[in-house]
């Protein structure tokens, strides 16, 4: 009985101290982490749509309207897709004609050196000025596709390309449906 009480109290105290010190660390780092995430998101919005000077969130944390001097110039999308080894968070934008203005990979857990190359400018820049119907890998559909997959990372490349196409198609359908 004495032993049991000692075991329980030692464990209790150890966990209490651990929880206390983590609360302190959390209080110190919460501010920098939150502000960093916010800064990162703003920088991402600016990067995928460099011409806009204001972004209005129309669907919370999903879709933004990009404004330039108060005029609507396009839309920014934030989506999460299943990649090769985990979720990939993407941000991309289209101008008023429906052509892509930029793509950014906000987070991913793809294989370093292979799938992780979806975050490189070399892969992302080929999406600029593409239209939704062109967002197919060349190796999947040589006639319509305009996107080069990364060598050794077809699954990651396909996941990104396909998710962007279906998001844009769904969004455009919704828009035209709403205006009728």
């Amino acid at each position: 009985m004495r032993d049991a009480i000692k075991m329980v109290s030692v464990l209790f105290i150890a966990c209490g101290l651990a929880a206390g010190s983590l609360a302190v660390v959390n209080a110190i780092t919460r501010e920098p982490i939150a502000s960093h995430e916010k800064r990162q998101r703003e920088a991402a919005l600016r990067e995928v749509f460099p011409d806009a000077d204001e972004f209005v969130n129309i669907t919370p944390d999903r879709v933004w309207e990009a404004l330039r001097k108060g005029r609507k110039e396009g839309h920014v999308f934030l989506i999460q897709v299943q990649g090769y080894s985990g979720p990939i968070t993407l941000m991309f934008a289209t101008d008023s004609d429906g052509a892509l203005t930029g793509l950014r990979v906000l987070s991913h857990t793809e294989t370093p050196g292979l799938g992780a190359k979806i975050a490189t400018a070399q892969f992302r820049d080929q999406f600029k000025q593409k239209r939704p119907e062109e967002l197919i890998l060349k190796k999947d559909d040589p006639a319509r596709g305009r996107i080069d997959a990364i060598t050794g990372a077809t699954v990651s490349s396909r996941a990104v390309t396909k998710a962007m196409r279906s998001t844009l198609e769904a969004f455009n359908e919704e828009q035209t449906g709403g205006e009728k």
Partner: protein
Amino acid sequence: MSQTSSSSLWKELTKGFLKENPILVIMLGLCATLACSTSATDAFGMGLAFSFVMLGSNIVVATIRKLVPSQVRIPVFITVISTFVTIVDYTLKAYFPALSQSLGVFVPLIVVNCIVMGRAEAFSSKNTVMASLMDGIGMGIGFTVIITVIGMIREVIGNGMLFGHQVMPAHYQPFLILILPPGAFLVIGFLMALHRKIMITFYKP
């Protein structure tokens, strides 16, 4: 082992470099070593994060070793280790976001890295704070140096780069296998063979 003469402390420090290197000899917790050594930068970051946790947990475990009943020592040690890991994780997220993003899930996974638990159980729960401090530093250095070497080899051969800079000529066709999981086993295997050769040649048993 608990005497605190400076020569024995020196021995506790240096044994992690070669004689009891955590990766090449103890070979515990290789998961992080395999996963985070695809580039030299990630490997070095992982090494530093690991060293901090190793050092912190060794000091705390050695400090409280006489207060903790042996039946509950494992849960107490795990609590100590996971506290340090969470501190590292939050600190990286707050002040080194780029590194935190590329190390990803492997920082939280230091909790289950058997080498930290192994040193707590096998060394610091039986030795003085000073000796455990030296053991932690030695293990940390041994781990960081070797994982960084593995990272450099894999990055140069598998990706043509070193610390994120192109070092191989542009027409160099990288051996992709080295940055895939099997590459880690190959590199570790060769390093182990080299390590054996060095030990046999210079430290005859």
